[in-house]
């Protein structure tokens, strides 16, 4: 076996296997799925029911905290464990809240010496009849409690994403691979225009076709994700629609190729169109969504790949996923290219 020829294909398969196993089998960090009730009155006692996700409440000692945005805490008076996923915490809410408003949002934190610390942000709304911040600061803890930190390898828990966070490895990586393939196809189109060698045209065509396949898979995985997190298979989100439109641009590339019989003419015109097409999709996918509001991270002011979206545990699988999809994409494109060359030889043996 010639390793210098095969190494990148082997690497692609190995990385893809790693992404599949590690990406699908690593559990999510324990989190809080829901709390009830989510409204309470200051100065009264509160019995809070907590539903956990991937938690093991029976296996550890649990403490529950209520926290406001300025980091003032109160600790639960008693915690009753119902099962691994359910807790009941008793609180005595002080008469005054450490805020200037009568209504304020609070987060719930569960610290367990088995699962570590989990939080559900801004889930509880507390109401106070009168405001006295000085008094409130005496009644609430101003120093951060000692939360238990457990260093296990977990993917982050996000309330609307749950297990679909794993789709990052497929959905985003497919787009990266698509762009790599399209960029390579433009390179080959330019090479064809410079050297007039039909092999470059076949390569560009194979890469565009594989790029379109990856783009459609990116749209499908995105649509699936949208249904789970946003509640609809398709939304008016700018990035989603611009991505679909960019696929249309490349569909036109295929139509152009299908419309021309003459090999050289087809190659020249489609190569020219291909260069134009990539230039057209850059503003569609990278610039327009940044000018408008979008649900996607990295657009409309949202951070992309920030610590809120991606932690180091995800990065450890995400980057190999991007590399593996790019390598697999080029492998598929290489196979398509070879099929085209063979087809061309069969049709007209004088071409080679």
């Amino acid at each position, binding site marked *: 076996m010639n390793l210098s020829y095969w190494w990148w294909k082997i690497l692609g398969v190995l990385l893809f296997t790693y992404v599949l196993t590690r990406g699908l089998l690593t559990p999510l960090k324990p989190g809080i799925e829901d709390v009830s009730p989510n409204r309470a009155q200051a100065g009264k006692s509160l019995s809070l029911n907590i539903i956990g996700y991937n938690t093991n409440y029976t296996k550890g000692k649990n403490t529950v905290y209520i926290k406001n945005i300025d980091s003032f805490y109160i600790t639960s008076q008693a915690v009753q464990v119902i099962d691994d996923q359910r807790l009941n915490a008793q609180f005595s809410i002080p008469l005054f809240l450490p805020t200037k408003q009568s209504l304020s949002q609070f987060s719930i934190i569960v610290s367990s010496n088995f699962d570590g610390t989990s939080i559900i942000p801004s889930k509880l709304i507390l109401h106070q009849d009168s405001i006295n911040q000085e008094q409130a600061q005496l009644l609430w803890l101003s120093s951060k409690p000692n939360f238990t930190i457990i260093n296990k390898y977990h993917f982050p828990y996000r309330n609307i994403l749950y297990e679909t966070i794993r789709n990052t490895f497929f959905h985003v990586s497919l787009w990266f691979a698509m762009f790599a393939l399209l960029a390579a196809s433009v390179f080959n189109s330019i090479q064809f*225009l410079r050297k007039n060698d039909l092999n470059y045209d076949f390569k560009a065509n194979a890469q565009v076709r594989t790029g379109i396949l990856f783009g459609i898979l990116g749209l499908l995985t995105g649509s699936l994700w949208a249904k789970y997190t946003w509640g609809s298979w398709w939304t008016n989100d700018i990035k989603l629609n*611009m991505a679909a*439109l960019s696929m*249309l*641009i490349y569909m*036109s590339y295929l*139509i*152009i190729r299908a*419309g*021309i019989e003459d090999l*050289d*003419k087809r190659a*020249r*015109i489609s*190569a*020219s*169109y291909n*260069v*134009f*097409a990539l*230039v*057209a*999709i850059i*503003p*569609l996918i990278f*610039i*327009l969504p940044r*000018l*408008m509001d979008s649900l996607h991270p990295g657009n409309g002011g949202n951070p992309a790949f920030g610590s809120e979206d991606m932690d180091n545990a995800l990065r450890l699988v995400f980057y190999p996923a991007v590399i593996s999809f790019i390598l697999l994409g080029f492998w598929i494109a290489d196979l398509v290219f070879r099929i085209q060359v063979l087809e061309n030889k069969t049709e007209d043996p004088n071409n080679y």
Partner: protein
Amino acid sequence: MNELLALWRRDLLNEWRNFYQLGGLLAFLSGVCYLIYFFGGKIDLQEWSLLYWLTYLFLSFFIGARVYEDDHTKYRFFFHQLVHPQNLFLSKLIYVFCFLLLINLISLFLFTLFIPVIHVDWMNWMILCLILNIGMSNLICFSSLLNTNIQNSTLFLTILILPLSFPLLGVAYSASIGILEGQSIVSNISKFQLILGIDLITFALAIVLLPQLLRN
């Protein structure tokens, strides 16, 4: 320069001689505006802007279908002996640019007449049209040239122009809403710069790729 001017004048003369085509275009535009007025009722700024650019897009298909209609079929060899193909392309570019600008002016007049919105800053609107038309005329001419090399059908031209023009029209639509809402040109400057950037890139690409398209 003289060659360019002569070609441009020839296109203008040709247009004048086939005035019925321009008349058809104006009739279409007036008809669309009247239909929107009649059936649309009171529409908001976003709908107004969307309809304006959609009408513009349909008219650009119509213009695109005629750019190389004769010059690349009937008179091809004749022209290629007389003028450089690049000059022919540039003259078409200037001609389409002027034609699109005229369409913009007439559309704006008819739209404001039939479907009055709160306020249209004509100056800002025309600056937007001016920079948009640089890129659009370039795309139309380039797509039209591609089309004559393929099958020379309007359907093909539509397939070529529609997706490629969307980045330009998308930004123009977004900027036009800002103008209709009374924003100053400064607040839309990033969108204008983006359109100019796309104009520049598409123009450079067209000039670079043109010799490849005309090689045979």
